[in-house]
C-alpha cells in the first residue's frame, strides 16, 4: 500500500474525513502513476515481442524411438490460418462437435467466434508446457 492511501485511511479512522470523501480520495490516488504505467507497458511490450510458437520433442533417457521434433510456427501465421475457420461447412461442425464429445469436451464449434479464437491466440504467449516422460516435450513462445 502506498503512503497516500495509508494517509487517507488514517484520516478516515481518525474521523477527519467521511467515508464518501475517503472513497473519492482513494479513487483520485488510484491512478498507478507514470512509473508504474511505464513498467506495465514494458511488460506488455515484452509479451508482444514473441513471434513464434515452438514445439520441441527431444528423446528422454529411456526413449527407444529417438524421435526429435522441432517446429516453429509464426504467431501471425496462426492468426491468418484461424480466419479460415469461417469456411468450415456446417455439416463439418456436427462431426467436429461429435468428436469433441467423444473426447469428453462439450464444445459447440458454431459458438466459437473469431474473437474467441483471437483471445486464445493472444494468450498463447503465456503458455509454457513441459512434459517429461519417455520423451521431453516443450511448448513455449519465443
Amino acid at each position, binding site marked *: 500500500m502506498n503512503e497516500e492511501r495509508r494517509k487517507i485511511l488514517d484520516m478516515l479512522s481518525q474521523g477527519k474525513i467521511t467515508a464518501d470523501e475517503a472513497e473519492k480520495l482513494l479513487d483520485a490516488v488510484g491512478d498507478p502513476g507514470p512509473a508504474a504505467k511505464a513498467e506495465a507497458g514494458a511488460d506488455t511490450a515484452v509479451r508482444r515481442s514473441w*513471434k*513464434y510458437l515452438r514445439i520441441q520433442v527431444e528423446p528422454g533417457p529411456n526413449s527407444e*524411438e*529417438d*524421435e*526429435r*521434433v*522441432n*517446429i*516453429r*510456427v*509464426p504467431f*501471425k*501465421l496462426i*492468426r*491468418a*490460418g484461424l*480466419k*479460415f475457420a*469461417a*469456411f468450415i461447412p456446417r455439416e463439418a461442425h456436427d462431426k467436429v462437435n461429435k468428436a469433441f464429445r467423444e473426447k469428453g469436451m462439450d464444445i459447440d464449434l458454431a459458438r466459437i467466434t473469431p474473437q474467441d479464437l483471437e483471445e486464445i491466440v493472444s494468450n498463447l504467449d503465456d503458455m509454457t508446457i513441459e512434459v517429461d516422460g519417455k520423451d521431453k516435450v516443450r511448448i513455449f513462445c519465443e
Partner: protein
Amino acid sequence: MLPLLVRFKVKEPGRRGFGLWFPVILVWIILAALMLVLLPFVLLAALITIWRGPGLKLLLVYPLLAAVLWNLGGLTIDVGQKEKALLIDFI
C-alpha cells in the same frame, strides 16, 4: 514476411539424403497468375451462391490466402527419428 526461399532436407535410412534450396517465390508468381485467371470464376460463383451457400465469403479466400502465404516466413518443421530426418524451412 513472404518467404522467398524454402529449404528442404530429407534423410532416409539406407539412402543418401538430399538437401534443396528452392526459390519459392516462383511458386508465388505462378499462384498469383492462377488466382488472377480464376478471379472471374470466383466472382461468378460468389454471385450464384449469394443467397444459398458461401456467397460473398468466397471473395475472402483471396485476402486470407494472401495473409497465410505472406506469414509463412519463419515456419520451420524439423522432424527426425533415428536415421530419418525431414526439414522444411521457409526463409
